[in-house]
């Protein structure tokens, strides 16, 4: 029972999506069914968010209570979760859900701090704390790429040498300074690189991988739909 029902649900959901693809949404319900199923997915995801909050609080809360190593950071994590979430969920005015009771206790001028609009606590935290941190993490890629290139790009074999040379040429071509340098050897060199490397070898390889991956995904989907692959639900 624990396996059969999920397999049936998986089969039906997948089947509806596949069949829906072949019917016109303007003329039949089955054509619109895939939109309906996708909306269900969104709704179910919303509910599981509670599970996520519960997990993050339990794992970090336990570390704080037990005073494990680095517990202040875990405490900061828990505080951050609520500092972002609670002000965003509070009513912004008396017309919001629960707003009348809320603003019978607190001054109405506080309304601009709540919700997710411009000037709210959520907005401020997002713009001045979260966003710069995200940008910093992404910017760190430049450092990591340099370090990985230094360590990994070795001309160990003929194909590794080819890869290395191609990478160097493309890196030169993709920046104005390098492109100016390449033009010293011939005005058409950047155009050749675009034609042969990016639109030639690159496109061929990308397509090969994309087609292979798409077939793999289709095969995996079929195995899931037919209940042959059940490991993802803990069986098999």
């Amino acid at each position, binding site marked *: 029972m624990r396996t059969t029902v999920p397999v049936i649900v998986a089969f039906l959901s997948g089947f509806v999506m*596949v069949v829906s*693809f*072949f*019917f*016109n949404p*303007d*003329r*039949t319900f089955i054509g619109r069914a895939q939109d309906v199923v996708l909306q269900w997915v969104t709704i*179910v*995801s919303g509910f*599981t*968010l*509670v*599970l*996520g*909050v519960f*997990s*993050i609080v*339990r*794992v970090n809360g336990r570390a704080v209570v037990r005073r494990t190593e*680095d517990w202040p950071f875990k405490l900061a994590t828990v505080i951050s979760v609520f500092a972002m979430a609670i002000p965003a969920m509070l009513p912004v005015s008396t017309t919001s859900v629960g707003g009348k009771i809320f603003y019978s206790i607190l001054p109405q001028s506080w309304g601009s701090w709540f919700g997710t609009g411009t000037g709210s606590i959520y907005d401020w935290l997002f713009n001045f704390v*979260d966003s710069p*941190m*995200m940008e910093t*993490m*992404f910017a*760190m*890629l430049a450092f*990591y*790429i340099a*370090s*990985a*290139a230094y*360590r*990994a*790009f070795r001309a160990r074999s003929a194909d590794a040498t080819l890869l290395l040379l191609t990478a160097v040429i493309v890196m030169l071509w993709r920046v104005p300074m390098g492109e100016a340098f390449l033009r010293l050897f011939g005005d058409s060199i950047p155009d050749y690189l675009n034609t042969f490397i990016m639109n030639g070898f690159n496109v061929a*390889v990308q397509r090969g*991988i*994309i*087609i*292979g*991956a798409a*077939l*793999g*995904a*289709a*095969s*995996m989907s*079929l*195995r*899931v739909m*037919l209940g*042959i*692959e059940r*490991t*993802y*639900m*803990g*069986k*098999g």
Partner: protein
Amino acid sequence: MTDPLFYVFYSVTHYSLNSSGKTFLLALGFCLYFSFFSFAQSPDSLNQHPPILTLIGDDTLDIDEGDTLIIAVSSIDLDGTIPLLTAENLMDSAAFIDSLNGQGCLVFAPGFEQEGNYEILLIASDGVTADSVTVAITVNDITVFRTSRIAVLVFMLIFSGAVLLYTNWAKKGKTLFVRRIPGIDAVEEAVGRATEMGKPVLFIPGISDIDDIETIAGLAILGRVARITAQYDTPLYVPVRYPMILAAGQEVVEQAYLEVGRHDAYDKDTVRYVAGEQFAFTATVNGMMMRDKPAANIYMGAFFAESLLLAETGNAAGSIQIAGTARPEQLPFFIAACDYTLMGEELYAASSYLSHEPLLLGGLKGQDFVKVILVAVIILGVILMSFDIGGWFKHLFVVP
């Protein structure tokens, strides 16, 4: 369009474009309404010039059955008379309205049985001379079944047939050869090494949600890995980015421990929700890598910009690293920083390969069979197109 009344009329009627019958009537109503408010001008000079009729927009249009099309026309007569506008060859569900101010509109809302090509003649006449414009309209058939997608159906049937056929052969005991995939073999080695070192294994099932098939593949591999860690009693950490993966991952790991008879060793926090934001997730996992120094980091699923951040940190922490993703843009990063990388379809094959179950391997063989067909089709296409005789062949693969 310079007449303000006409502008209002045009705005209102255009608003109803692509709507169904109700808006057709609304549009018709507005046309009639303005026809009564726009008759102020009158002819006052001799009839020396023919009227000039101008179509506002293209003269070749196409529309789907069930939609509404509105075509506006404008006419002038240098003699000062207001031309009378009419339309010929009107089909069902079409009406032409002369606003009696030199402007008019054609409203057409084809039903579901009106597929075809139509030509309508729009005429402006001053009673003596006339000008005309022909509008060609193609009404596209909107069928219940999308026949234009039949190629996909055929492909799907061939694909499903091949997978089922090979699965059936495998079920009957036929031995199927599947080539060695070193990256997958390394998974077992890596877990063994972690056990020897007494260090944990870190597994990340990608950073996409459960609706991504790569995540499902990652979870399937997680099931296999969890079985090995349960047998060896090796700690396993599975940080996840989405609550749905948390629920599914916990189920997968718990079941794996249960099946090898080690349910007592299962910790509910093996799979833990870390953060919904991509880089907050990455920062937390990087912290785990540097603090706990896992012996093995296994990345299986959909990865994006964080791939190199994770893999480089894992490398700095001295872990053995195995990655698998179907995202071609992230493969170079994993290849540079990991010991083994599963590329594209290898990710989807990993779970079947690790299971050693003939039934699952049958699916892989079916997939390979279809790939051979596709390669043949591509070669044929290249040959036909090279000789400029492949138009029909290319058209077979156009799926609107």
